[in-house]
């Protein structure tokens, strides 16, 4: 049998679309000008820069002038949080976020805490959903910013963004959302959803690494955190990465045009995986909300086994996936997201994330579904935690999860 080579890790990164790559190359070799130069090379670059700004803005129903290009999701998150905090210090020092944010948010907030800001990290329920009442209760006179991610990168849960936007607006508090995983996978309308700031990252939607953008609503002032030339309206200094930006613009167009089909196709594949796994494998739990989740993302905890060994087995069979296990995170603790959802350590160690993308097929999903029971069985037979006689108890799932 020919060796499979199946990529189910699109939440980590995506392949650059071939039309995007082609266009990027053109802006590296032929149209290589600096957008700040006044000669024809510069004007050509400047024109392409502004065209990309329009394309990115259109994807989220923003104005082109509301888009600031950055080097990626991490920078956009830093710029949003520090930019708002530093600018509004006199108004207040309180920020509300959640326990399940990406480290680009959490570690930036820790930094702000070290510098005098107070942060409330909202808890989440077992589906990784925040509670809107908790949010309302956390608001004080000092609150200047609410930052809640659009969709979680590990379990895929989509937060009630429109409702959060409404609450923020009613209290006259800025609302930032890390939409790195949602861009190109969800309908996003910053006007309808009352979003003031939104982070995105090019390499999560078929464009290159090192590209990103921050949307900042017109009239919202933020402090620059990187100083230098007068690029990006004096908010983000540094010669613009024209090839990357042009590529991200085209990727935004492609994502927008195909969004409905993309969501439909991926949701079908996702639900096939969820339904089959839950029906055919005992002692397994779906992590994240059953329906309010990213179209291509599934995350399961398989009791009695550890995630890395599962990943390695899948890799040997030609499937690339990821896990929230400590062994794969480079630390001793399993994913903070899974622990915040109330999973115990054992269950968190046994998690598997598959994130499907544009090029995945039903055939690939079927192949995964065919080989996974065998792998789980093999690892469980090896596990000292697994005692098959326990499984016969009437409600195996709860039984094991609560061990």
């Amino acid at each position, binding site marked *: 049998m020919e060796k499979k080579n199946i990529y189910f890790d699109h939440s980590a990164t995506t392949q650059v679309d071939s039309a995007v790559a082609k266009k990027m190359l053109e802006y590296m070799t032929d149209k290589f000008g600096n957008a700040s130069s006044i000669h024809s090379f510069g004007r050509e670059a400047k024109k392409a820069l502004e065209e990309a700004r329009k394309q990115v803005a259109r994807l989220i129903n923003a104005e082109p002038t509301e888009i600031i290009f950055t080097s990626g999701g991490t920078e956009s998150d830093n710029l949003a949080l520090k930019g708002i905090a530093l600018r509004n210090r006199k108004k207040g020092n309180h920020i509300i976020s959640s326990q399940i944010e990406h480290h680009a948010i959490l570690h930036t907030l820790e930094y702000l805490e070290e510098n005098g800001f107070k942060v409330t990290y909202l808890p989440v329920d077992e589906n990784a959903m925040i509670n809107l009442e908790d949010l309302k209760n956390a608001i004080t006179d000092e609150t200047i910013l609410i930052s809640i991610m659009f969709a979680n990168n590990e379990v895929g849960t989509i937060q009630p963004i429109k409702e959060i936007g409404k609450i923020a607006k009613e209290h006259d508090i800025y609302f930032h959302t890390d939409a790195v995983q949602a861009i190109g996978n969800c309908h996003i309308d910053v006007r309808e959803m009352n979003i003031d700031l939104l982070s995105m990252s090019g390499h999560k939607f078929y464009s290159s690494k090192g590209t990103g953008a921050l949307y900042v609503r017109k009239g919202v002032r933020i402090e620059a955190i990187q100083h230098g030339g007068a690029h990006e309206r004096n908010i983000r200094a540094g010669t613009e990465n024209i090839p990357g930006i042009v590529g991200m613009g085209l990727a935004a167009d492609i994502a927008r045009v195909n969004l409905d089909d993309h969501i439909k196709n991926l949701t079908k594949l996702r639900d096939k995986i969820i339904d089959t796994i839950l029906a055919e494998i005992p002692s397994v739990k779906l992590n994240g909300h059953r329906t309010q989740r990213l179209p291509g993302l599934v995350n399961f905890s398989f009791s009695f086994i550890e995630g890395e*060994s599962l990943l390695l087995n899948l890799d040997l069979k030609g499937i690339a996936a990821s896990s929230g296990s400590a062994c794969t995170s480079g630390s001793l603790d*399993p994913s903070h997201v899974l622990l915040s959802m109330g999973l*115990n*350590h054992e269950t968190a160690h046994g998690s598997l994330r598959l994130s499907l993308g544009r090029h995945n097929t039903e055939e690939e999903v079927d192949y995964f579904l065919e080989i996974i029971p065998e792998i789980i069985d093999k690892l469980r037979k*090896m596990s*000292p935690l697994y005692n098959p006689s326990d499984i016969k108890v009437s409600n195996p799932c709860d039984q094991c999860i609560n061990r």
Partner: protein
Amino acid sequence: MYTEKVIDHFSNPRNVGEIEEASGVGEVGNVKCGDIMRVYLKIDENDVITDAKFKTFGCGAAIATSSMVTELVIGKTVEEAFKITNKAVAEALDGLPPLKMHCSNLAADAMHEALKDYMSKKGS
């Protein structure tokens, strides 16, 4: 990041299972860290290890080191087995990634626990 030997032992682990009426059983690790290893030994009247089996919950390194330690001890005397260290197990696998050296390299400890279990049973 793993050597070929690790991948080999991980994908075709030797001596998986339990030994009924084992001469000694040892377990180390805990669920919180994500690694638990249990080693079973069969030891004859001359203190020679005639069989070894393991059960492990853990990452690729944890499974590979467990498998390797069972291979290393079969045929050895109790005294010789006590001298096998975690480091020696890792070396027998042509090394482990640095991060795994302390977190998932406990198989020799589990084996030593099984030896101690045997000694205490024998002593009583």
